[in-house]
């Protein structure tokens, strides 16, 4: 028996490969002026106009069915688009979460009315979503969330509590929050549900949190007696845990888990080319990083193939994310060591700033979307050890 036997080599359908020139042209339009250190922020780069432009051009929500404004294509299509966006360092943060998680979640678990309302807006890049899972007391231990949505007489909900580390809460229209709808935190996975919160509702307040690079991408979100309509519930009451698990497979599996540092890697590659450095250490470093990325890309494609087959590859996605983020974190370490081991070689200010940025932000790669230790626990369970 082979470990995770279903993860096998796959290949991108020709019709998806064929999208590259078009998306490239659109990206080039937007980012040709951006300096390397801004492009290195890709994941975190928020540009609502760019997201809408992508949406109008049909590059958001591609995997949503046509009747909801999508392109009726699959995860492979998204793979190509994401690969192009991140490789170029395009600002993806605006539509990112809706495209990857909220759209598929609403498609799978939402009511027909919810699909008709949200999905076309997601696909056109108009409705921006954020994820409300973490709370001050609930990070890795998500089952302990305390934010509550109490059922009301009019069958709506009354929401109270607090979320934290919510990426893009400041700029988003909606949050899909994991909340307790019955029982108490001692009930763990029982009694959790997902609700869509319109962030403009009275009682919602958002406070930005500045990170160690000086950016403010994530935020605290407070809910004080927020009245939610009955149709705020996504999926079934009490099924929040099952739904979140499925959602995390989307969050963890994509090529975004291997390309976070690729702008830095590519900028460094151009630097050594410009310096005409051809010594053995440089060539090996370049080759080794490229070889690792090639294997990770293939692995990400293999996980994408499971998604395309309609599965929810939770364990496989964890495996790939852990390996992928390790690579992403090695890039600034190794590139930094290389550049600083040539103290007499001038480097462009942009490359220098990109290196410092990626070095500082790199610890987040293995935190966001579930920490390394938690992912390894999931893999261990997949191996039958727990």
């Amino acid at each position, binding site marked *: *028996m*082979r*470990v*995770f036997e279903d*993860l*096998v*080599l796959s290949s991108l359908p020709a019709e998806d*490969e064929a999208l*590259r*020139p078009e998306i*490239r042209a659109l*990206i*080039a339009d937007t*980012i*040709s002026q*951006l300096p390397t250190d801004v*492009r290195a922020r890709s994941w975190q780069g928020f540009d609502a106009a760019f997201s809408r432009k992508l949406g109008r051009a049909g590059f958001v929500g591609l995997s949503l069915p046509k009747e909801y404004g999508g392109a009726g294509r699959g995860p492979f299509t998204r793979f190509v688009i994401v*690969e*192009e966006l991140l*490789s*170029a360092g395009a600002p993806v943060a605006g539509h990112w979460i809706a495209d990857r998680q909220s759209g598929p979640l609403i498609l799978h678990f939402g009511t027909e009315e919810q699909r008709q309302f949200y999905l076309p807006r997601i696909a056109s890049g108009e409705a921006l979503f954020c994820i409300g899972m973490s709370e001050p007391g609930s990070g890795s231990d998500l089952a302990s969330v305390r934010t509550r949505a109490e059922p009301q007489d009019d069958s709506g909900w009354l929401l109270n509590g607090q979320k934290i580390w919510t990426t893009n809460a400041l700029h988003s229209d909606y949050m899909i929050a994991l909340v307790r709808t019955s029982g108490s935190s001692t009930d763990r996975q029982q009694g959790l549900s997902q609700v869509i919160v319109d962030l403009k509702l009275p009682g919602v307040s958002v406070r930005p949190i500045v990170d160690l690079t000086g950016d403010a991408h994530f935020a605290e979100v407070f809910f004080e007696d927020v009245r939610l309509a009955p149709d705020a519930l996504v999926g079934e009451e009490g099924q929040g845990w099952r739904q979140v698990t499925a959602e995390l497979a989307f969050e963890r599996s994509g090529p975004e888990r291997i390309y976070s540092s*690729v702008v830095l*890697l*590519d900028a460094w*590659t*151009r630097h050594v*080319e410009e310096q005409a450095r*051809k010594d053995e250490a*440089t*060539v*090996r*470093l*370049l*080759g*080794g*990083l*490229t*070889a*690792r*990325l*090639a*294997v990770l*890309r*293939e*692995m990400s494609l*293999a996980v994408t193939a499971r998604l395309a087959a309609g599965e929810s590859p939770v364990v496989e996605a964890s*495996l790939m994310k*852990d*390996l992928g983020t390790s690579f992403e974190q090695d890039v600034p370490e190794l590139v930094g060591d290389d550049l600083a081991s040539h103290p007499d070689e001038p480097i462009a200010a*942009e490359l220098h700033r990109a290196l410092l940025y990626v070095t500082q932000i790199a610890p987040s790669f293995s935190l966001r979307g579930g920490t390394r*230790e938690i*992912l*390894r*626990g999931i*893999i*261990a369970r997949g*191996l*039958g*050890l*727990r």
Partner: protein
Amino acid sequence: MDMQELVAPFSRLLQDICSPAAVREVERGESQAAMWQAFEDSGFLDALVDEEAGGAGLSLAEAAPLIALLGYNAVPLPVGDTMIARALFARKGDQMPQGPIVLAGGATFTPFARVARHVLAGSPEDPILVGSHESCPPAPSLRPLAAVLRALLISGAADRVMELTTAFANERSQFGKPIGKQQAVQQQLAILAEQAVAARIAAGIGARGGLYPQAAIAAIAKHGASCAAVRISAIAHAVHGAIGISEEFDLQLLTRRLHEWRLADGSESYWAGVLGAARTSAGPMASADFIRFAQGAAAEKQVGAVS
């Protein structure tokens, strides 16, 4: 062809003729004739030989699971090497050589050299045989193919090591519970699983390159598999504790091979150099573009030029 129809019988054959006891006998220098004869009789040695020439006509990618099984079972003879050598000779229209053949992609670290009758030299397009006791010049043009073969063998052995190590972690108790219940051990086994999957995917990339792989493809395959081999072996031994070090425990049959195959036909650093050189000479290209380009995607206008 349904590969399962070939994989299952091949797996049974290997279990029959390559039990750990039989593997040790060959390693001790006792006769390998019976084991080799069983491979000859099975017909699997011609798996990669074209159908017109009397083989099964599998591509290297199709045969990859068979070759991985050789690693999985720690087969002590150059069966994968011979499969490849026979296919190359058949394509050239040459007489099919008899007996075990090894591919030698370097001057040293040639696995199975001791038990081979011939060494394959020359190139994949123009293979020649050298007697195993003659001095054999290294054949760099065979190295990519040989490296892909080693990567496939590594991936199979990695799977077996994974299996043995998880089973052991579930059985061995310390502090009143199986060590596999200890989080520290679970985390190590998760890394082992990641590396085993990485080795398989890397080897698969190589196998997709066929019998005449480009150096860049072999580099991706062998670099990935060699890196994984080192870590897998280290974790497996750490989890097994002292028992894993003993000769009579089967783990060492596999971990020794992991190291042997890692060193054969270029280690990770060697192949990193090859890929780095290929990348440098391909001209400025974004990483994602180079990776697709190296694997045969049409070279397109690249994104990297926006700096």
